[in-house]
């Protein structure tokens, strides 16, 4: 398939429309609105890698300020140093408050993006079993998406790289949450993701497009009515479950009425290289494809909120492509391990790849997509061997449109990570003073330019 430009007819196919092959009819001309020329949209990207480090000093620089030296595990970030802000000294207080109750990777996963007490006793043996608790509230990206997501075709996009655990979908496989006990799955298959977001370039006549859209909206409208008629006949819990489903159906219908903000944006399906999305030996290739699609999705303004989940918390993945044949999680429970350093440095290189790809895309305001974004490299635990929730990972790439300091390491004094969550939402234009549970309010001091 050739590179193609986005327009309604290509997008429709991606949304599951009826494919009718017609000749290429027209190429829409990119247009730039005044607002876009003034400033590119702010974007939030979450970049997750699991299992923490065993040596904080190998991960986080010891010196504050601008003249810091990278530890061995983050040394690859030197390449994007001037786009990077390191915030250390944040504690995941909400996770610590819950930590007595279950597998600590799951605890971290359910708290990292929500900062709120997790769910206990829904589908799990009891507190203390290995897999208690999906998140107890919305994750920061979903909250942000609920506020700014209507501006784009997709309010958010969730990318995964082999995110389903060896044991299936447990709390340690889910970091994104739409609300209490509503884990949100990432899409692990790059081909499905590409098609979902961009379609496959099949062209249809205008009339057919409008017709297919109208039919789908009509069907979804009927379905929503089905839901609302039924809800009154159900008990409270069942009703709530169906309401969540109905909300997704409504959002889908609304999405059909939105057009892309960037018609004419060219996407190239050659980013897809066809690997089986569960092939563990293809993990690097699958991740590269997902990053390429993520970059295209941001560049073409299909969404302003995205996440990329590499593997799963407590991941057992081996990394034979860098000579590590042992499972990741096992390695974290060995003392100072060069193998773990290799894994974290490999993940750092992936972050560099993503950052540079985002930086290569220039926007109408002259900045790069990266410059207008904030990418948080997050993790479910700071230190792997004892699952410490103090001094969690706070690597922020991009500057969110020049708002954040860059090239600097700012040391916090044990502030709750909820403040980082508040800070992130403020950076992308969502007001608010608190996020998650009662673990402090306000954003972080001293990390914005001029502070």
């Amino acid at each position, binding site marked *: 398939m050739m590179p193609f430009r986005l327009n309604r007819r290509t997008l429709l196919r991606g949304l599951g429309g009826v494919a009718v092959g017609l000749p290429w009819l027209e190429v829409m001309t990119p247009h730039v609105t005044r607002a876009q020329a003034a400033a590119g949209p702010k974007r939030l990207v979450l970049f997750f890698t699991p299992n923490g480090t065993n040596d904080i000093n190998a991960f986080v620089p010891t010196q504050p300020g601008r003249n810091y030296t990278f530890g061995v595990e983050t040394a690859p970030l030197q390449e994007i140093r001037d786009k990077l802000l390191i915030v250390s000294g944040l504690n995941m207080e909400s996770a610590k408050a819950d930590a007595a109750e279950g597998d600590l990777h799951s605890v971290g996963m359910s708290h990292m993006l929500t900062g709120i007490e997790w769910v206990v006793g829904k589908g799990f043996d009891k507190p203390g079993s290995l897999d208690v608790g999906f998140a107890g509230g919305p994750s920061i990206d979903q909250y942000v998406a609920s506020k700014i997501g209507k501006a784009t075709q997709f309010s958010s996009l969730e990318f995964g790289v082999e995110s389903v655990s060896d044991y*299936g979908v447990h709390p340690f496989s889910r970091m994104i949450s739409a609300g*209490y006990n509503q884990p949100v799955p990432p899409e692990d298959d790059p081909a499905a993701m590409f098609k979902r977001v961009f379609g496959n370039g099949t062209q249809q006549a205008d009339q057919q497009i409008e017709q297919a859209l109208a*039919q789908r909206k009509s069907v979804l409208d009927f379905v929503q009515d089905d839901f609302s008629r039924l809800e009154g006949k159900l008990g409270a819990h069942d009703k709530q*479950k169906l309401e969540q489903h109905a909300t997704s159906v409504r959002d889908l219908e609304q999405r059909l009425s939105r057009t892309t903000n960037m018609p004419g944006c060219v996407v190239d399906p050659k980013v897809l290289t066809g690997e089986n999305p569960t092939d563990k030996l293809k993990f690097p290739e699958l991740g590269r494809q997902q990053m390429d699609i993520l970059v295209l999705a941001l560049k073409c303004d299909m969404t302003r909120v995205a996440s990329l989940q590499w593997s799963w918390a407590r991941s*057992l993945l081996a990394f034979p492509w860098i000579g590590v044949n042992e499972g990741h999680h096992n390695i974290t*429970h060995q003392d100072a391990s060069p193998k773990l350093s290799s894994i974290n440095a490999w993940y750092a290189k992936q972050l560099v790849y993503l950052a540079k790809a985002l930086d290569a895309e220039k926007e109408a305001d002259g900045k790069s997509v990266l410059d207008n974004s904030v990418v948080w490299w997050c993790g479910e635990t700071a230190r792997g061997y004892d699952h410490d929730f103090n001094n969690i990972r706070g690597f922020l790439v991009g500057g969110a449109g020049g708002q954040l300091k860059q090239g600097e390491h700012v040391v916090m004094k044990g502030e709750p990570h909820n403040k980082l969550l508040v800070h992130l939402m403020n950076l992308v234009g969502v007001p608010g003073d608190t996020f998650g549970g009662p673990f402090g309010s306000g954003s972080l001091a001293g990390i914005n330019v001029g502070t």
Partner: protein
Amino acid sequence: MRIVLGLGLMLAACSTNAPGQGPNGMNPAVPGSGGGVSDPQVVPNGLPVDLVSPECRAAGAQPGASPIRRLTRYEYDHTVHDLLGDTSQPAKAFTDEEVGLGYTNNADVQTVSDLLAEQYETAAIALATSALTSNRAAFLGCDPSVGGQDACARSFITSFGGKAYRRALDAEETERLFQFYAKSTATYGFDTGVRMTVEAMLQSPHFLYRVEPTLLDGKVQRVNGYAAAARLSYLLWSSMPDDALFQAAQSGGLDTAAGVSEQAQRMLADPKINRAVGKFFSEWLELDTLGRVSRDATMFPAFNNDIKQLMRTETERFTTDVVFSGAGDLNALLLGKYTFMNKPLADFYGVTGPQGDAFERVELDTSKRVGLLTQGSLMAAHANTNQTSPVARGYFVRARFLCTPPPPPPKTLNVTPPEFNPNVSTRERFTLHRKDPVCASCHQMMDPVGLGFENFDAVGRYRTEEAGKPIDASGEFFGTDDINGPFNGAVEMAGKLATSAMTRSCLVKQWFRYGYGRGESEMDACTIDALGRAFTASNGNVRDLLMRLTQTDAFLYRTNETGAAP
């Protein structure tokens, strides 16, 4: 009154309910909503009178929670197969289910994301389009050019809708669907109008969920005939009811426990039973985990996806054979002296056996292997990338066979397993777990069980030495009700498990969780108790247990949990 049941872990509350919570205040010893129950020997939970505890007999029907259940991917694919003849398995592209208590059908963790809603739409469009293009006349069941389009549409909506929603449609919803068809047809033509109507039905909550009429006041009620039919079909066939079930539902044939039992017996004899039983074993034994694990390829180059699939097939063939052709009981699952292999698998295990690719029954050397537990699938699924894992194997036995999973390590503990060292045996590397008293309190529940499997390497092959030393496969059960004490090797371990009331009780609980799509609660104590007594009385017969699952309060009755939404 509180009675202690089963493992001694669950406090039952069989008679704490207020009087009158039984259906219509009826004598709970006579289930059924319509009069004329003709089998006075059968009491709630479908057991002969002497097998139900007096407390439970007096307590009335206690169905426990009845959360609404959404079709799993597995059920969706079987349902569209049975509904439309569609074999495309569209749900394979749906996002993976969240797992609760080890099962993908756990209602408490079922959620619908934007992604899944979109996938439902995509599948509905494809299914409806395909159904109308592949065999339009048969699908419609009428010829619109003969009796008229609208008449054909009405009959189609009634018949197809009834199957898709698994019950007779009421007049109002039939009319709504017809009006939707009519409006769509006026704009787009007949075929598109029908297609859109089918798309709507396939995305309706009445199709995607198993909706059961419920009293909103929290009173206990019998599930109605159609709901009972769907409970039966999804429990036993992982799919929608067939015509005979619909017929029985319509004619009141499922209003009595005896009527439900009669249908269950018929269904147990249908090949479709393999779908549900196969799915149970796959999830109980965590066979999907086998498909996902990997091994250090430098140490175990022969352990590839093909071998994993063959191991899975071995376990599937064995469990199916035991349940449907063999003794059918727990003893046979644990102690069966045979298995199934083909040549590649036999070669991998290093045994002589079948000479071709077809799986054949193979008699085991019972000094080495016996029953399920020593099969490659279970041994390989629970091991580390480069060595066995006594912890993972012990945990697996505690969680899945004894239903007593130990808690995770305390937060303050530096949980650092021993580094692999080819010169030291696994048993030696894990001694710290038993020396340090903090570790030992939990690890003695797991490690000494898992060490009993040391004759099986990380990919499930039998071995007699490690690191140049003979294997020591001595193990011990701690913290059980009735099998504490030492054993030597997995064969003896299986023998101990086979004698344990905990194992029987656990298998009952596992079937409860899978069969009813939820965890057991205090209100289920009598159901669990009755199933346990029946299972014991049948000498652990799985087919019998399946039938009994259709006779419990949890199956025959429902109640609407009235707790406030969180």
